[in-house]
């Protein structure tokens, strides 16, 4: 993969802070690489600017959480990384977004391929109105030419593999052909993660993946994400400080469309560099 050279930039606090002894960097074979990089990213919905000069480097193989008050642009930022925002005709973007060193805004980029490699999980679980099995196979059928000729057995293996990875297999293996929308919310959300896996994505974007779940479901999904850490790069929006704190390696704090601070989670929660970060974390932000 050819990497577009990145322009020299000042080393930020964050980069200095990210010391070499990070335990997570052992995870994944390209550990320490940059999975998502944005440079001077600005985004407008019509006349309304939602993102301002966002410079981010999200490391590969770890979980990065994104926190910030409602409306600060977290969802918008996620939706720029899989280019789903452009569907709205009135969105304008400037700056660069790279995934694994590739500029995804370049004209030769096929947006379908971007979405294949960058999966998204939503706030409300949104399984398709199909069977559990067909939900898992949906993306696979679309993207894998092999799926067309695949035997039932091969497809079964894909389904089983994905559902086992998300710890759903034992619960649903006897009802793969029943409707996915009848599952519990926790199961639905796991299924929504499972259906991305056969596409072998590199990045998984999660937009408040637990906010519709009860505490037990939240814990289960968090554990699942934590278990997949290393294999995939996670960028996870959360409203829940405790979740950000216990379930992420690094943390990004956003405010009014800007990235205020990006640091290791233990640092940002213990010794935030910016006053607004501290205010927000401690619930003092109004």
């Amino acid at each position: 993969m050819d990497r577009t050279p990145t322009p020299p930039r000042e080393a930020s606090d964050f980069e200095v802070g990210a010391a070499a002894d990070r335990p997570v960097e052992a995870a994944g074979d390209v550990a320490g690489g940059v999975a998502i990089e944005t440079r001077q990213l600005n985004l407008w919905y019509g006349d309304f600017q939602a993102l301002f000069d966002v410079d981010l480097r999200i490391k590969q193989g770890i979980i990065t959480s994104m926190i910030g008050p409602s409306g600060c642009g977290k969802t918008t930022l996620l939706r720029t990384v899989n280019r789903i925002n452009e569907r709205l005709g009135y969105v304008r973007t400037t700056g660069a977004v790279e995934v694994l060193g590739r500029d995804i805004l370049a004209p030769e980029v096929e947006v379908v391929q971007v979405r294949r490699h960058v999966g998204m999980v939503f706030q409300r679980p949104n399984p398709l109105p199909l069977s559990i099995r067909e939900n898992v196979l949906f993306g696979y059928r679309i993207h894998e030419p092999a799926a067309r000729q695949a035997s039932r057995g091969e497809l079964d293996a894909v389904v089983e593999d994905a559902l086992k990875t998300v710890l759903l297999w034992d619960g649903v293996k006897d009802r793969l052909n029943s409707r996915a929308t009848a599952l519990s919310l926790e199961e639905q959300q796991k299924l929504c993660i499972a259906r991305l896996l056969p596409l072998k994505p590199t990045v998984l974007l999660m937009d408040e993946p637990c906010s519709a779940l009860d505490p037990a479901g939240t814990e289960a999904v968090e554990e699942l994400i934590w278990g997949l850490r290393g294999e995939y790069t996670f960028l996870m929006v959360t409203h829940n400080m405790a979740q950000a704190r216990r379930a992420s390696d690094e943390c990004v704090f956003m405010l009014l469309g800007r990235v205020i601070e990006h640091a290791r989670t233990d640092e940002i929660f213990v010794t935030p560099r910016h006053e607004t970060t501290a205010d927000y974390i401690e619930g003092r932000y109004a």
Partner: protein
Amino acid sequence: MFEATELNFRDNRVEWAVKALFLLMTLLLILPVLLILGVLLYRGGPVLSWEFLFTQPTNGMTAGGVLPALVGTIWLVVVALLASVPIGVAAAIYLSEYAPQNALTRAINLAIINLAGVPSIVHALFGVGAFVYFFRFGTSILAASLTLAIMTLPVVIVSTLESLRAVPHAFREACWNMGATRWQTIWRVVLPNSISGILTGVILEVSRTAGETAPIMFTGAAMFMPLLPRSVFDQTMALSLHLYTISMNVPDVPEALPYGVALVLIGLILSMNAISIGFRTVLRSRRKW
């Protein structure tokens, strides 16, 4: 402490009166339906027989059956369906799934709504000008059916649009975010979940065309044409026009005959509706959400 007060008694009486009034209105609504069916059955029932359905009118249409008109109406409706469904459904899919929300699509939506308000006699004139003369189809099933198709097109589009919009947006988002194209999304998720609604709407609306008289009168329906049509370029009899003719234009028609024809027409429409409801039930039961 919890006893009803004078105020409660009054409120309860008003409540009861309002409810009774609305019930009465509802009963008034089904009264005409029952009356129509009752009168038709009472007066037309005696002429009904297999022979009536399967023989030609005889004696200057004062006796015999309705076969050519029955067959003709089926031809007209089926050909109209073949024309209006593909066009209407495709247009609705475009408007719902592809079209950007801009001035052009708003204008198109407005045009569709207005088209639905055009009286059928105006459609008839248009059909004569366009299909009979300009496209040189002559007075034929084709010209009449296309006229019917244009007349029903707006309703087909609107009912299809409604069915498509009833599919939750989150399903589409889920597909797009997995890299599905619009068409993959439509084909694999949107259509399977709206097809029952689309079919129901389409069949219900098109079955209404079975009863239309004006649009086919000048474009393809003949008053008397005992031979069954063999192609879309033939003229044909139709139940609606036949009913009109024997009621208004033919002397010495036995009183029961028009009622018999009307019964056949209503029966045809009701069976089409029954088919569409059957379709819907089957397709709904397959739905997975």
